[in-house]
């Protein structure tokens, strides 16, 4: 079943500006891990913000979990879909870790008695239970990002959008967050994850890939369909995944390997 359906979406920030999003059509299946690729300024963040209902004056229709995005449904839709932003500092709202996780719960009018347990539970899930009373200035970027994830997870969403949430972190922080996301997916297969990223290795692990350019979706499909052609990816200014590079290089030096072969198959062929 499709959890997000976007039809003929066109959006521009101001009337003088050319369309930031132009006639975008997109469907996302429930429980999928979707990566959105595209170079700087291609409109990925704008698309995410419009879907989140943060940019109201768009043309087209957006349906999220069976509800059309409009003023009346906005509050209900916000319960289903959340977003984690890029900068760990700018989304830390509470004074301490526990207050930050509590912020969303307070808005959702969770009774005071239940809050403590929920906060502990989600702090545990992201591995921050030893830092509950710490202030953001005493936390690393990766830790702040994990708190942000706990803060939105506590709202029990059906869809999470990550907008380059790892781009300000070092490789270790990145790895932690990826590990966390895949763990979340494993524990809750119905959770839909949309990840806006420049990291092609991450995209390679997802179920579905959407490539954007100049505010349009130019390509979509499974990683094998989208990422198989090294030269075409390079044309889109996208990195080429290691696996694709490897197969490309091997084929150039005389092997005959299918483009969507897995690493094991490649190993088998080379060792033969």
């Amino acid at each position: 079943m499709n959890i997000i359906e976007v039809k003929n979406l066109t959006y521009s920030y101001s009337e003088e500006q050319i369309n930031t999003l132009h006639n975008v059509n997109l469907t996302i299946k429930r429980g999928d891990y979707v990566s959105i690729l595209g170079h700087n300024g291609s409109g990925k963040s704008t698309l995410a913000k419009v879907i989140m209902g943060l940019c109201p004056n768009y043309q087209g229709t957006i349906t999220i979990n069976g509800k059309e995005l409009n003023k009346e449904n906005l509050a209900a839709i916000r319960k289903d879909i959340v977003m984690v932003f890029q900068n760990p500092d700018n989304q830390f709202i509470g004074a301490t870790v526990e207050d930050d996780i509590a912020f969303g719960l307070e808005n959702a009018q969770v009774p005071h008695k239940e809050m403590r347990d929920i906060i502990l539970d989600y702090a545990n899930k992201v591995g921050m239970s030893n830092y509950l009373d710490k202030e953001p200035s005493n936390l690393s970027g990766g830790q702040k990002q994990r708190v942000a994830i706990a803060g939105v997870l506590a709202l029990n969403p059906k869809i999470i959008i990550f907008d380059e949430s790892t781009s300000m972190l070092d490789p270790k922080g990145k790895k932690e967050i990826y590990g966390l996301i895949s763990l979340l997916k494993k524990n809750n297969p119905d959770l839909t994850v949309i990840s806006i990223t420049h990291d092609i290795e991450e995209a390679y692990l997802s179920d579905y890939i959407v490539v954007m350019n100049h505010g349009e979706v130019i390509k979509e499909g499974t990683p094998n369909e989208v990422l198989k052609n090294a030269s075409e990816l390079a044309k889109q200014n996208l990195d080429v995944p290691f696996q694709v590079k490897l197969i490309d290089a091997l084929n150039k030096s005389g092997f005959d390997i299918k483009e969507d072969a897995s690493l094991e198959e490649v190993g088998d062929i080379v060792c033969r």
Partner: protein
Amino acid sequence: MDNLTFGRYSPYNTVVHKLDPRNKIFLMILFMVGIFFQFKLWSVSLIMSGVYLIILIIIMLLSRVSFVQLFKSLGSMWLMVVFLLLIYIFIPTTTHKIEPEAFKIFNYAVYWDSFCRAGYIILRLVMMLSLTMILTSTTKPMDMTYAFEWYMTPLKLIRFPAHEIAMTLSIALRFIPTLLDETNRIMKAQESRGADFSHGIGRRFRAIISLMIPLFVSAIDRSEELANAMEVRGYDPRAKRTKYRLLRFHFKDLLAFVLIGCIFAGIITLFVFDQQSTGGIDILQVIFNVKGF
């Protein structure tokens, strides 16, 4: 950035720390009002100041407020001291009966009385300062905003945006360290481009502009992202919200309330009697009428 350390919250676990912030704010204001009651008789003023000082010192010891920090921050008060002294010396009061002359500056008589009055005012200011310091170093800034919100709640009836103001305040507090970091970073970046933050007023002024503009731009960017993040988590200032932090009035709050309340009642009683009294012994008079002083 050093003066920012004045009255910064120090995370101990004393009785004073555990008091309800609403109670603390109320009692502090009560104490301040008490301190600023003006008695007719110098003797009463002196004795009461002594009493206040003793109470203050007890509270400071109880709450482990650092005396060193207090004295350090008093150092920056010297300008005020000079100012007050000048005012009291050159605007002599005629109401006081006794005016023993201290010395003369070019035929202008300077009276001991001026020094005493200035000293008395300064003493009271110092006491106020230590009171505020006790409050701020034993109360988390966030608890303070919760308390303010609570006090402003009745104003909601006349559509006063109490919650919005408290939320703005708490976010401002939350972002102070972030923006200080940013300030340092921009300063270094601009210094590496030749901005001069340490020499000459003109150059410094230009350097500060080169600091302020990027700082403002980044703060506005941040605020936009923050607003998005808040909205995503379902924040609506007009909607009803539950609270994670509840303020609780404990038994020790009641104790503190009764204690300070009694002292305040005592002060008022004394004040009323003092205003009615006409004679009495004035300690100052006694001291300065001693021959040879």
